[in-house]
């Protein structure tokens, strides 16, 4: 690409930085007004809405089908696969909730514990590692970075058995430890890399200025990088939440006692290819388990889009 990207000239003005201007002043230069787009004529806006809704409906068709089927008695889900249910029957919900050894909220609670631990762990440990990879110079950085990426290139199926042996020798099987502790130790390279990319996208002048202000790495990390990377942190939190919430395989292997089962394992117990399956309750409980993540997302997404453009430094 021959065109160099358009760069702002204001913050690169070293002279002014040397003047040791307070950070808040510097930050004030970063515009915090939302981008003013000329909103097109009304008709165009409406057309956009119509297209978005229409496309959304097509995309959501499978989900809507599941929602509608969750209101049908188990037997007629397949015989009458139409989208509009002929009757609104809530038995799948009540039945599904109490079909297993524990009521369904028991599994929701277990999942919530695992999820909370994982989210906290990933937020802290991955952002720390990412700061080191993005901003610190140390020997062997490219090599360590390569090793980090390599750790996510092996399919889970060949590492789960050695992992099991490891956790079993630590007597961690059937506890939430094998699911949470690795997150506290930054084993999720996906998020390290994600945050590295975001940190590198932040103007370096900011931390240089901070350094001249006398900040050490700890304070730069806490006061500048983290607040400015809210979208990356929100992404990490939301993704960790959703992926842990949906993760079936490792939870299946590491949790052996039904007491400890989480939502994905509980959902699987509704169906069995060798005998009768309770599709209705499965759909109903799938919807139930989607509700928390949908709302987490709905409320969390505003942090996703709080970019540098809208964040001030205090």
């Amino acid at each position: 690409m021959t065109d160099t990207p358009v760069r702002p000239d204001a913050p690169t003005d070293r002279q002014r930085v040397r003047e040791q201007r307070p950070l808040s002043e510097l930050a004030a230069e970063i515009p915090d007004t939302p981008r003013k787009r000329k909103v097109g004529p009304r008709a165009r806006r409406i057309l956009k809405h119509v297209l978005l809704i229409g496309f959304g409906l097509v995309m959501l068709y499978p989900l809507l089908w599941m929602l509608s089927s969750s209101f049908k008695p188990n037997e007629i889900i397949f015989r009458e696969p139409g989208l509009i249910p002929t009757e609104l029957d809530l038995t799948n919900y009540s039945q599904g909730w109490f079909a297993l050894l524990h009521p369904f909220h028991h599994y929701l609670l277990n999942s919530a514990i695992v999820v909370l631990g994982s989210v906290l762990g990933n937020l802290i440990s991955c952002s720390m590692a990412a700061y080191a990879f993005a901003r610190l110079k140390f020997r062997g950085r490219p090599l360590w970075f390569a090793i980090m990426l390599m750790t996510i290139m092996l399919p889970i199926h060949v590492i789960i058995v050695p992992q099991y042996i490891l956790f079993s020798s630590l007597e961690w099987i059937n506890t939430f430890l094998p699911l949470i502790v690795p997150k506290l130790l930054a084993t999720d390279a996906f998020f390290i890399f994600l945050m590295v990319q975001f940190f590198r996208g932040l103007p370096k002048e900011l931390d240089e200025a901070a350094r001249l202000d006398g900040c050490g790495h700890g304070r730069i990390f806490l006061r500048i990088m983290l607040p400015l990377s809210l979208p990356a942190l929100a992404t990490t939190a939301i993704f960790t939440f959703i992926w842990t919430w949906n993760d079936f395989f490792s939870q299946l292997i590491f949790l052996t006692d039904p007491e400890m089962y989480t939502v994905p394992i509980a959902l699987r117990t509704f169906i069995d290819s060798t005998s009768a399956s309770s599709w209705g309750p499965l759909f109903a409980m799938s919807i139930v388990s989607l509700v928390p993540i949908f709302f987490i997302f709905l409320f969390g997404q505003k942090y996703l889009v709080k970019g540098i453009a809208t964040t001030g430094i205090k």
Partner: protein
Amino acid sequence: MSVIQEVAKTRGASRETRKGDGKAAAIFLAPWFIGLGLITAFPLLASLYLSFTDYSLLEAPNWIGLENYTEMFADPRWTKSLAVTFQYVFISVPLQLAAALGLAMVLDRGLRGLAFYRSVYYLPSLLGSSVAIALLWRQVFGADGLVNQVLAYFGIEGVGWVSHPDYALGTLMILNVWTFGAPMIIFLAGLRQIPTMYYEAASIDGASKLRQFFNITIPLLSPIIFFNLVLQLIGAFQTFTQAYIVSNGTGGPIDSTLFYTLYLYNEGFGSYNMGYASAMAWFLLLIVAGLTAVNFFASKFWVFYDD
């Protein structure tokens, strides 16, 4: 703190930067190093060791040297699974990224109710690995599914797309594109990091929207595009759940959706050949690491960092 102290500290800090930040790096990377040493390294190395053994899971492993690897290269199903996976990766990853970027731009700003739209468009990704997905996909691409109902309206008779050897892989590619939520969100977050003043400046200069896209959005978003590309690639090579659920674990019909990882899983857990599965996994790692290295090398030419 006195002024002198502060100045001294500042000088110290800046000198430290020039020399490297070994000590700080050690602190920031401590959790990661501990995780690598205690949790990640052993299973990784164990699987490497197992790839040179005959390991049934039920008995202790037995060293057989390179036998798993030589057997692999002579295995027609292995070749098939590699072909299926490459086809899938190279078609569905670019499509998914394009869809994600496109929708991220549409859903970025300038319209009411975007929060709601974003959440709705993310919903399919929540379902992507659900056990119910096989059934839902049949509702869309089955012989009597939505697609064929629409086609029938136009007088075209479709086939059962999900279970036809010529089309089954295609439906899984669509399934992958359909779950574009994750890269879309990352793009959205990235778009928000581009200061609006660039666009304002460009608008004043009279640059067209298209030019703005190529001269501002793409370069400034390039670290994020790069991230998505690298990780979707790594992820796509390991595609498992959807193929497993939709094909009932067989990779059928006629091995048309026999993904590399699905075959590996069937060998390891279905046929109790965990040694062979480990060899497959390490070969996959070589491929993916190679492609990632190429990606990193190429990134020097199109990814712009602010440092």
